[in-house]
């Protein structure tokens, strides 16, 4: 059993990486990766919310299924997530001003990270149990954090390169992301 859980975790983090394999959460991936420090902040904040959202949405999904209201799924999930993001912001602000300083401006951006909605939806689609949902969320969050931070470090270095003018900035970042995604295809088959 623990091994299965590990598989879920690793599977979500590496084999089916949210960003590089599932292609979710690209906007923050492209937008908050110009600086290593800000990417670390974004990674932490997203990881927290993503895990939390996976757990909370499992509860909501149970209720919706019980009342046969699954067509309200998107609505209920997103409202909860939006509220949760704001509440997280408040909570961090109250408990740790230092952390808030680091994460502050990234928190609101999380609401529109489609991974935060996508992972709960995938959880619901795959009928994951509670622990599985949570681990799937956590694994995805770890995967997101990992590639975001690596990508930011890569982009920081590329800033100094003699990139052809037309490719400087976003196009080169996209090509790098594409090659990263290509590299991650090496993981295919290593978990369900």
């Amino acid at each position, binding site marked *: 059993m623990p091994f299965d859980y590990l598989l879920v975790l690793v599977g979500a983090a590496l084999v089916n990486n949210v960003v590089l394999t599932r292609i979710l959460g690209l906007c923050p991936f492209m937008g*908050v990766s*110009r*600086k290593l420090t*800000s990417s670390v902040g974004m990674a932490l904040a997203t990881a927290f919310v993503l895990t939390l959202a996976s757990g909370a949405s499992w509860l*909501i999904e149970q*209720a*919706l299924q019980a*009342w046969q*209201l699954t067509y*309200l799924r998107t*609505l*209920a999930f997103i*409202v*909860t997530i939006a*509220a949760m993001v*704001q*509440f997280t*912001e*408040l909570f961090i*602000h*109250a408990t740790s001003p230092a952390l808030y300083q680091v994460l502050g401006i990234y928190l609101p951006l999380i609401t529109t990270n489609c991974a935060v909605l996508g992972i709960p939806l995938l959880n619901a689609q795959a009928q994951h149990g509670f622990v599985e949902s949570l681990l799937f969320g956590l694994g995805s969050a770890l995967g997101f954090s990992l590639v975001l931070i690596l990508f930011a470090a890569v982009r920081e270095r590329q800033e100094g390169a*003699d990139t052809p003018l037309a490719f400087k*900035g*976003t196009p080169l970042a996209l090509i790098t992301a594409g090659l990263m995604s290509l590299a991650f295809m090496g993981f295919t088959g290593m978990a369900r």
Partner: protein
Amino acid sequence: MLQALAAMGGLAVLLGALLGVAALRLRVAANPLVDRIDALLPQTQCAQCGYPGCRPYAEAIAAGEAQINQCPPGGDEGIRRLAGLLGQEFIPLNRAHGEAKPKRLAVIDERVCIGCTLCIQACPVDAIVGAARQMHTVIASECTGCELCVAPCPVDCIEMVAPGETPASWRWRYPVIPLKVSA
């Protein structure tokens, strides 16, 4: 239908109450970003950016109303620093606001100056001394080179001159290695 309304209504009441309370508790702190942006601006106060000084421009950037490439005295290096602070992409200086050029200092031609004090009123950093009807002088170490004193002078006696280079002020140049043959 009723069930749906009840479920979503319940959720909404719960979350709405939470956020309503949260909104009140959230203090709106002064924007520390402005200070950090202002610290990166050259403080020439020349208004070429389209704002009446560096701080107003900093406020505009922080509010997302102005681009980071409007300050000619800061030049590309200044834009790079701003881009770094704000996590944005570097963009070259907007030429519409002027060209980046080496810093120059105002020098008053003392043979022509009539002591009208107009330049004193124009100087944003009080770098010009002299009383009415007396000849005026620029304190070189405090002049930012903003050129604001040039226009008001009725006798056109203020000139912007580039300070001469000495071995002490000389800087190692960027090693030019002609890699590219054409642009």
